[in-house]
């Protein structure tokens, strides 16, 4: 399993840069990954999404879909794209220390 420095921490990641051991996740690690993803600073709205994703992951074993985030009332899809430009489901999951969302086959 490759190791990688994010910020000041060495973490285990998969080939796509997702943490493989959630116990290594900290808010600093999250901020460092966010910076890699081009998000300069994580604000309260980002944290709300990250925390919701972690809670869902704990309950279901999967990162929630964009539709799930939208339906849960946490955030609209439009806002989600503003907070995590590009691929919000994947970026937010990576920042939250979750495994890569299962590409639906």
């Amino acid at each position: 399993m490759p190791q990688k420095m994010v910020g000041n921490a060495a973490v285990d990641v998969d080939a796509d840069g997702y943490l493989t051991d959630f116990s290594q996740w900290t808010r600093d690690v999250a901020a460092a990954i966010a910076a890699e993803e081009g998000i300069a600073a994580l604000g309260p709205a980002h944290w709300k999404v990250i925390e919701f994703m972690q809670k869902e992951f704990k309950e279901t074993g999967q990162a929630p879909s964009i539709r799930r985030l939208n339906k849960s009332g946490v955030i609209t899809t439009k806002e989600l794209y503003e907070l995590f430009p590009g691929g919000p489901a994947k970026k937010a999951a990576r920042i939250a220390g979750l495994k890569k969302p299962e590409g639906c086959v």
Partner: protein
Amino acid sequence: MRHLVILGAGTGGTVAANHLRKKLSRKEWALTVVDRDDEHYYQPGFLFIPFGFLEKKDIVKPKSKFLPKGVDFIQAEIDRIFPAENRVLLEDGRSLPYDYLIVATGAEIVPSETPGMLEGWRETIFDFYTPDGAEALGAKLKTFSGGTLAVHVNETPIKCPVAPLEFAFFCDDCLRRHGKRDKVEIVYVTPLPGAFTKPVASRILGGLLEKKNIRMVADFNAEKVDAAARKIVGYDGREVPYDLLVTVPTNMGSEMIERSGMGNEFRFLPTDPATLRAKKFENIFALGDATDVPASKAGSVVHFQSEILAENILRAIDGRPLEPAFDGHANCFVEMGKGKAILIDFNYETEPLPGRFPFPLLGPLPLLKPSRINHWGKLVFRWIYWHLLLRGRKIPFVPARMKMAGKKRPGAARDGSQ
């Protein structure tokens, strides 16, 4: 008398009924199947209708014809399931009590989920996931004189995730044969980062799009369709203009699941991916497109699931532990045009890989590589579907669980399991 009720007489419900009627004593168990209509469509055939290769009447037979003797077939709309009361309520007011329930109500396209999509519906916006849609698209293609043809996947998961690729390949092929390819730009618009979800297949299929001069717009999530201006607008602000939009709208489970309060955000029933038992209900099982398991929504998957589902229902009835045996196995032919097709074989853990199928070296079917014999395989499959698959019979040499034998990971050392 105890009751097993199956909701849905599509591929999953029909195969499950055929397996279980054989295994459950007729003296002890009544078996009831409910569906809203009696028309069983061979869904892989939808793809061929817009190009005139098949007609609606070629791919439809009565559902009831494929159910075994000793099954009570009720044609009615299902209102909802009352899982706490172990009963199903039909819209006509009838109530069906059950000891065990199988949910096989499938998935359907829901264009109304995307603002604006219905405004140009069947004028400049078409689907080929319904028999009527495929037929209407066929009529439209005949008169389409040129411009931008966008093939669009709105949101994943969708049934048969390779179908939109096949559609794009067929369009290219058809236009070339008619000498009109230079009049039409084909664009492939997908929310995925590439042509497919898994890297090796994505690379190979993406390469084929490029070779056929089909432009890919990836990572595109549609916020709305502006039917008047004929463009798809993405959440990130990107726009894809079109003259003809062939879309695969958001796929969702049955509204009945939502009315029952049992579904996830896509109205799919949360189901254990290995045992196929509903996560929250001991005596409810599910298979096929109706579940949320992360396998392809495809007929081959239902076929592989059905054996395991039948075994697990028998185990549940006997009070034995369930067998966590479903591995996500899928097996699909991908039509490429020009009489060739690609075959892919994969599961939850193993992505589609090159190699030979079903036998290493001998094949005869090559994996992840265009070939004529795969195209013939797809054509033969229609016969297999009606005569073997729906009846719950085994398909020769293709077991429920995926085999590694014959597969090769490109660039990797020889796989130890070969």
